[in-house]
């Protein structure tokens, strides 16, 4: 039997989360996916499009995934009792919500692509809710990634060039912070690139400012653990 080390989950992941019912994969996990999109956008959304993989499209409504996805995308946590009212709240906020269906390929049944747009920017993620509230985001603004939202994470968008990884990781090391995992991908050599750094302890404002100041960094985003 193959043991998949990327499936490591903690006791608290298994015996949890504390959440609004009725389904951890359809309510808690999807709320967290919505929340990831909201955190990456980092401003109030104006429009959110949820593109559902067919098995999820067949089941999402009965399980309250629509409330949960929308709730997460407007910043509600999985244990927020307002989740059942999320769609109404979003409408009152003036957020345009669209649900559509599309075959997203050879992926977990509960997979969704979220296209979220605010006043000044937009973001896009594709991820799966794999059960028990655990998520895996594998595409972020067009870059391959492996984001689970279970630790503090630095997301870095930059122009691909030699030395970038060492410059960034040096700053993190100087802050005395341990890196748990690092993942890089790029669209083309020497062009747009992306780095995801999961860290063991929170990254301060100062460290983030120093990383933003590194040459060729387009954007640095720091996400806390997604509750």
């Amino acid at each position, binding site marked *: *039997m*193959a*043991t*998949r*080390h990327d*499936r*490591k*989950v*903690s*006791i*608290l*992941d*298994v*015996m*949890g*989360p*504390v*959440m*609004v*019912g*009725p*389904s*951890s*994969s359809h*309510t*808690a996990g999807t709320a967290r996916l919505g929340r990831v999109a909201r955190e990456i956008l980092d401003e109030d959304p104006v429009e959110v499009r949820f593109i559902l993989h067919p*098995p999820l499209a*067949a*089941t999402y*409504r*009965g*399980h*309250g995934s629509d*409330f949960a996805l929308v709730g997460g995308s407007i910043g509600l946590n999985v*244990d927020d*009792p307002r*989740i*059942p009212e999320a*769609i*109404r709240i979003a*409408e*009152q906020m003036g957020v345009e919500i669209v649900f559509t269906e599309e075959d997203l390929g050879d992926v*977990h*049944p*509960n997979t969704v692509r979220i296209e979220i747009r605010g006043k000044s920017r937009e973001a896009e993620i594709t991820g799966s*809710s*794999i*059960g*028990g*509230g*655990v998520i895996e985001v594998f595409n972020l603004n067009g870059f391959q990634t492996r984001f689970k939202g279970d630790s503090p994470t630095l997301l870095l968008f930059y122009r691909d060039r030699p030395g970038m990884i060492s410059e960034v990781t040096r700053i993190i090391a100087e802050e005395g912070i341990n890196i748990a995992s690092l993942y890089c991908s790029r669209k083309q050599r020497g062009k747009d690139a992306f780095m995801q750094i999961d860290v*063991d302890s929170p990254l301060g404002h100062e460290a983030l400012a120093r990383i933003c100041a590194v040459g060729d960094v387009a954007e640095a985003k720091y996400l806390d653990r997604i509750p």
Partner: protein
Amino acid sequence: MIESFKQLEELGRDRDLADVFLETDEQEHGIAKADILLALTRRRAVMRDCVERGKGGGLSMGKLVGDEAKKLNEAFLAGKTFLDPLTVKAELYALSVMGENSRMGVIVAAPTAGAGGVVPGMLLALEEERNIDPEKTVRALVVAGGIGSIIALSANISGAAGGCQNEVGVASSMGAAAVAYMMDGSTRQSIQAAALALKNTLGLVCDPVGGLVEVPCVKRNALFAVHGLTAAQLALAGVESVIPMDEVVEAMVRIGRALPRGLKETAEGGLATTATGCAIGSRLKDEANQRRADRAAERERLAQERKASTH
């Protein structure tokens, strides 16, 4: 990191199983033991609240379930139940939690929401009936979570991935190990309890009527809470599974892959496509369409209001 139940048995020989899991989790995930125990103390309290709220019953979102816990509670209080109190309470508490879940109440996913009644049903009933210190129940939740985390290394804990064996089956397996622990069983007995419980849920499909976590989920949690208790009883008496736990999990993964898509949470097979299941499914679809239409009207009304206020 503990990669298999074989390894767990070696690590946990003559040791407190909760301590083994707490140490491993602290190393792996950097969460201090005290913080894990604190979080689980709160989660036990959420489970307890669920049980109290749920006993009163109330109609579910899909209106398919609602008064199961209330009925059993009334029969129990009136002295009209024939099973022993531990068994009745395990059923009752599982039904209560699942009732709350079906009304979009706040619950603990253990390991999932749809299987969230099994573990609290077993553990809270045992705690009450055998006067076990709640702190021991919290440590038993560590054991349950630890067992689940090893299963999760090779299996997706979701009905969509492998059917209900991956949810209620896994929950009863986790709960059985935790019950053996609460009854002062050895590490080996906990693992055996987990294996016996899981083995006898293999092949259980996920075929929810109308796609809701209501039928058969709510009552199934009650029945499999009892199933887990009986597995723990056998293990504590020294009965062992011929097939080791690691291989039972392997079998579960293979069976889950072999199950057709229609029996993995899609509501396109099994109970969901019986005559009654289909009738309920189409009624739910009609109601959902009505709600969508109502929401569109509401949106329109709000837009008109905004327009009027800008003039």
